[in-house]
């Protein structure tokens, strides 16, 4: 049987690459250390497959076809198309079609209806954490796109349920795969809104407290209340909610949190308890 060997989350703001030169040295050191800590822990877990959860930032999908959730079931995915990620070393990224299709079949059997893609382009949301974690070997990636860009968005409760589903699906896969989960994005930021540039530290610290505590109903209640009143980028915390469900709601250990005005994101990094 497959086994879940680690659950992680990391911010993925594009300015972590595009405006890296503008980040002051102390923040650079902390961001680098946080990514590397996650990278070391992920490598030590020796995953064969990494389920990575991120939004699609208008790369694969547009208004004419906008899935709430899409599983990348292809044997391969394309690397990031954004010009500022030209130096990302993986232009083609191996997937794991049999396992991804098992996730899809399990989902359909249990009343979830994901969209499927046999060839996704993995944008900065997927690739910046992989790059910055400095992994010596990239596991096979099973990407899951969760819409947090164009409303209406999946509820936090549903995202938690998706995570629980992933946990069950991993447990029911017959081959002895080692599977890790990485949710990316957040915490607070605001894109293309009058509040752009604002980091809502109070929201971020409340998020961290709630995820640390583990209690899913309270987490969903507070996030549904607060998300409409903070920047739109914080909606990506849905990916953290999926990770939280996959980890069995056990709560996480914060690796680091730092608001970085130069990248306009409250940057956070975490590893769930096992």
């Amino acid at each position, binding site marked *: 049987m497959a086994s879940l060997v680690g659950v992680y989350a990391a911010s993925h703001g594009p300015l972590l690459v595009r405006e890296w030169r503008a980040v002051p040295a102390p923040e650079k050191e902390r961001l680098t250390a946080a990514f590397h800590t996650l990278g070391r822990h992920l490598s030590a877990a020796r995953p064969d497959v990494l389920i990575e959860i991120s939004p699609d*930032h*208008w*790369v694969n999908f*547009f*208004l*004419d076809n906008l899935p709430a959730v899409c599983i990348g079931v292809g044997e391969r995915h394309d690397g990031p198309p954004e*010009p500022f990620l030209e130096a990302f070393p993986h232009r083609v990224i191996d997937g794991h079609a049999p396992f991804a299709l098992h996730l899809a079949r399990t989902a359909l059997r249990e009343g979830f209806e994901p969209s499927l893609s046999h060839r996704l382009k993995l944008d900065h949301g997927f690739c910046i954490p992989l790059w910055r974690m400095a992994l010596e070997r990239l596991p096979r990636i099973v990407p899951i796109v969760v819409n947090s*860009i*164009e409303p209406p968005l999946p509820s936090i409760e549903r995202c938690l349920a998706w995570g629980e589903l992933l946990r069950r699906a991993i447990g029911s896969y017959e081959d002895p795969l080692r599977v890790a989960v990485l949710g990316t994005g957040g915490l607070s930021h605001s*894109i*293309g*809104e*009058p509040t*752009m*540039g604002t980091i809502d530290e109070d929201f971020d610290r409340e998020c961290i407290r709630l995820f640390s505590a583990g209690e899913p109903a309270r987490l969903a209640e507070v996030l549904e209340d607060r998300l409409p009143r903070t920047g*739109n980028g914080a909606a990506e915390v849905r990916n953290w909610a999926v990770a939280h469900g996959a980890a069995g709601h056990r709560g996480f250990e914060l690796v680091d949190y730092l608001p970085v005005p130069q990248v306009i994101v409250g940057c956070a990094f975490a590893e769930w308890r096992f």
Partner: protein
Amino acid sequence: MRDYWLSKLFFDLQAPAAAAEYRASREQVLSRYPLAPDVQAAILGNDVQFLAKRTNPYLLRYFFLAAGMKDEEFIRMLRYG
């Protein structure tokens, strides 16, 4: 509310070659999209607040980035017009 063709224009201009063509010849690129006259005027006039009501905020940001506007100016126009 989403203006489909405005959003499609912004989506398409994420491609570097398309953005370069837009910067070189804005009217020619705009002529390929069935945009309402007031929407087209807002694009040509950099009316950020008008456009913000009609498209996704991420697409709005990508467009003005592709058009060559710095984030500081974009944020100022979002807030104050």
